[in-house]
C-alpha cells in the first residue's frame, strides 16, 4: 500500500456535537465526489463512487403533536453565512450555515434534538444502500434518444431521419392520444439507485465509498439511505 496521506477533516463546528440517536434506516446527505476503481479483498475490481458526507446535523425535529407528523430534518453542506437568506439563517439559529435540508420520517423522535450530529459511522462495509440524486440534464431530446425509437432511412429523400412515425389514426379518434411518447426534456429527474454496496465507510474523513454509479454530476447532492 502506498503512503497513507492523511486528509484533514473539515470539521464544521468547533464545539463537539452530540451524536443523534440511531435510526432504523439511517439516512445521510452527501456530495458526489467522483468515481474510481475499488479492489475487493478477493482481488475482484468494482467501479466505485465516493460520497462526501461531512457536516450532517439535525436542524429541526417535527413532532406529531406540533406538526402533525414525526420527522427529523437533516442539514448538509456548509456555506458562507452570506450565501443564505435571513429566513434560512434564522431557521438554523446558532447552527452553521447549511444549504441543503431534508426531512426524514421516523416513528419515534424521542432523543432527537437540534444540533445533533449524523456521521458516516452509521454505515459499515457490506451494507446495502439506496441512493437518491438528481440526474444530469440532457436538454430537450428527440424521440430516438429519449424513448429509443428507431430512426428512419438516412438517404433516398427520406425526411425522416430522427423523427418518430405516426402519432395515431385519422378522423377516428381525430386526436392524438394522451401520454403518447414524444420528444421532451430529459434529465434533471429525481433518480433512486437501489442496493448499492458500501465498500468503505470512513467516519474520520466523512467519506462513503459505494459500489457502482450514482445519479448526477460531480458535486451534486445525494441522499444515502440504508436499504
Amino acid at each position, binding site marked *: *500500500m*502506498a*503512503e*497513507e*496521506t492523511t*486528509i*484533514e477533516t*473539515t470539521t464544521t463546528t468547533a464545539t463537539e456535537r452530540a451524536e443523534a440517536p440511531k435510526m432504523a434506516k439511517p439516512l445521510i446527505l452527501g456530495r458526489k*465526489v*467522483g468515481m*474510481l*476503481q*475499488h*479492489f475487493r*479483498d478477493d*482481488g475482484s*475490481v468494482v467501479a466505485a463512487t*465516493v460520497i*462526501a458526507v461531512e457536516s450532517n446535523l439535525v436542524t429541526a425535529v417535527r413532532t406529531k403533536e406540533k406538526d402533525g407528523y414525526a420527522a427529523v430534518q437533516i442539514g448538509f453542506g456548509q456555506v458562507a453565512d452570506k450565501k443564505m437568506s435571513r429566513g434560512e439563517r434564522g431557521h438554523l439559529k446558532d447552527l452553521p450555515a447549511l444549504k441543503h435540508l431534508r426531512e426524514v420520517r421516523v416513528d419515534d423522535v424521542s432523543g432527537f434534538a437540534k444540533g445533533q450530529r449524523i456521521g458516516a459511522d452509521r454505515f459499515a462495509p457490506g451494507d446495502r444502500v439506496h441512493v437518491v440524486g438528481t440526474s444530469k440534464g440532457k436538454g430537450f431530446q428527440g424521440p430516438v434518444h429519449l424513448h429509443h425509437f428507431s430512426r428512419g432511412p438516412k438517404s433516398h429523400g427520406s425526411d425522416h431521419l430522427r423523427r418518430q412515425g405516426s402519432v395515431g389514426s385519422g378522423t377516428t379518434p381525430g386526436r392524438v392520444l394522451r401520454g403518447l411518447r414524444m420528444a421532451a426534456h430529459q434529465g434533471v429527474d429525481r433518480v433512486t439507485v437501489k442496493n448499492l454496496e458500501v465498500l468503505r465507510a470512513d467516519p474520520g*474523513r466523512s*467519506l462513503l*465509498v459505494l459500489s457502482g454509479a450514482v445519479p448526477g454530476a*460531480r*458535486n451534486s447532492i445525494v441522499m444515502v439511505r440504508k436499504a
Partner: protein
Amino acid sequence: MPMNDVLKTLASEQQKAEVPEIRPGDTVAVSVRVVEGNRERLQKFEGTVLRVRNGGLDEQVTVRRIASGVGVERTFLVHSPRVEKIEVTRHGHARRAALYFLRERVGKSATLKEKRR
C-alpha cells in the same frame, strides 16, 4: 479539501508502494495469485509487454507470450491484489507505445533488441 485530492488520496491508499517501471517491449514475469478450489498458488506469466496503459490505480499492462505454440495475451491490473509481483527481466528497445506489430511475427522476428543503456 479539494475534490480531486480526495480521489487521489483514496486511490493512493489502494496502490502498491513499489511497482517497477514497465515500458512497452520489456520482458516481464508477472506472478498471479490463482485460486484452485480452496488452494491458492502463484502462477508466473512471462512475456513481452505490448502496451502499458497508465492511469494511476487503473494502470494496466498487456503481456504477450507464446504458450505451446499459441500466442496468449493477458492484461493485468498492476495494482490488483491478485498480481503478487511484476519483475522486469529484460528491457527491449521499442520505438512505439503499442507493439501490436509483434502479433504478426513469430520466432526471432518477434523479439526486440535489448535496450542500449
